[in-house]
């Protein structure tokens, strides 16, 4: 390897700029196409809107086959999306979107990246907003005609918003 090339490598390392020269710059379009992360403050939410009224239609064509009428789920097969509020400290906690999930943005994000289970990534943003609104409505969290969009969804306060605490491990002091 030439002294010149070694000098270039050393300089690149010093500048912390591509020390190995591997990979190629991503274009803004590539990043936009791949980046589906949605944060609790709404960062990443796409343009679009939907209500529970519209969401019920989508739910009945796309979701009800697994999650059942009204999001009741099918025990042992598919999870319930509603109910369980107030059950978390009991002997039989029921963890659902309504009782457990801390952020409404996570509901949108989960549907957008993972649902419907067998044909994910087909719902346009309006449908994802609408189904999200419908599930929140079923849990009594938003009104039937309340529009969910990039501004309103992050403002929804979920019942279990303050239900999470950081890791306290090691929490058990075993005796010998």
């Amino acid at each position: 390897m030439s002294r010149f090339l070694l000098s270039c490598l050393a300089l690149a390392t010093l500048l912390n700029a591509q020390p190995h020269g591997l990979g190629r710059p991503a274009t803004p379009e590539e990043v936009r196409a791949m980046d589906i992360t949605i944060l609790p403050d709404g960062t990443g939410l796409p343009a679009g809107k939907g209500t529970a009224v519209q969401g019920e239609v989508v739910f009945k064509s796309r979701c009800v086959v697994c999650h059942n009428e009204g999001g009741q789920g099918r025990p042992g097969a598919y999870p319930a999306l509603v109910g369980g509020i107030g059950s978390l400290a009991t002997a039989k906690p029921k963890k659902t979107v309504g009782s457990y999930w801390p952020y409404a943005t996570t509901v949108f994000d989960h549907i957008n990246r993972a649902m419907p289970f067998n044909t994910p990534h087909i719902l346009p943003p309006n449908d994802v907003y609408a189904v999200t609104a419908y599930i929140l409505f079923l849990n009594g969290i938003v009104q039937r005609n309340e529009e969910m969009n990039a501004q309103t969804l992050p403002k929804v306060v979920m019942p279990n918003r303050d239900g999470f605490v950081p890791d306290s491990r090691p929490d058990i002091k075993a005796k010998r």
Partner: protein
Amino acid sequence: MAKSRRQFLAASAGAAALTSCGKPGGAPAAAAPEASPAANMRPYGERSPLEKPLRAIRDLSASSGTGSSRTPLGDLFPGWITPSSLHFERHHAGVPALDPATHTLLVHGLVETPLVFTIDDIRRFPAVSRICFLECGGNNIGDQRGVPTPDVQQSHGLVSGAEWTGVPLRVLLQESGVKPEAKWVIAEGADNCRLARSIPMEKVMSDALLVYGQNGEALRPEQGYPLRLILPGFEGNMNVKWLRRLNVLDQPAMSSKETAYYTELRRDGKAEMFTFVMEARSVITRPSGGQKLKPGFHEIVGLAWSGRGKIEKVEVSLNGGQTWAVATLREPVLSQALTAFRLPWIWDGQETVIQCRCTDETGYLQPTREELVAVRGLNSGYHYNAIKPWKVHANGEVTHVSIPA
């Protein structure tokens, strides 16, 4: 043609003769199938058809593609490594078929230069390898719920060990230049659910690996081919498979897999989140549930592991916890890796309860079920690492020990 057929027959006869040399009294002259060396050459090897250990598959919903398969720990020789074909699986939306010639990794967010890497790019970085365990956060969940599983494959089979080869994650991120305000990296898979987990920057910059190799060859498809994360000691779900994107952020994403799932409900109804480390645990794999013993000599064998470092000590009780003996650890003991232990035993044919407990290098002691439940209750659901007793019956059958309600 005729000539080559004669040559073949002659060669076969020669092979048969060679084989019969070792057998006193002579063997039949006819060529047995196992006598042909050519038949024993395989481009890709398989175990003997007489060897039967298999993963146990359990679907977790009525949809195919979500569920787990468990390593048959009781049928294997305990050590650092699990055969790749028997490494446990846990999938949330199936196994995608990815082509390393076209699959790429995007690094973006709080970086100086967003970059796209091909698999070839990633394999050109200086490589590192390390042996460590990988364990699902839900391993042995049944025992916490008071529904003890009948054998060690069902109870503890969501742990395996492997040698992983790849690039330190910090080295790859340095290529993009991480901005000072970066605190978390969101890792995302290319499976159908685009599984996403937030990884704290301290882990990213210490021992996190971006791997393409498992036990000396390319990752198996079910282990994330062609690219996955390995976060030594952290719960399995965070070791994102089929990695397609790393998003560098100043906050966690609060994805469904770190809020709705993989969080641990306490007695007071609050849930602990970001419980990353798999704390120390150990289990006897032989004798264990479903096996049958004859009186006489046995070697108690099993595995211990800790997400915080090396296993320091494993103790075994053969009398229901009245006395404990220190087991011998397989050397070298590796940090955050499966550690085999053994202890000789002469079973007198009397009914008894056997169990093991471990201590790691931080001084952490594996708890009893009572100690764990007293703190966490019955609904935490993940990271259940309590002592696992096995009952040896007078007829030699080994079963689980029932848990009082």
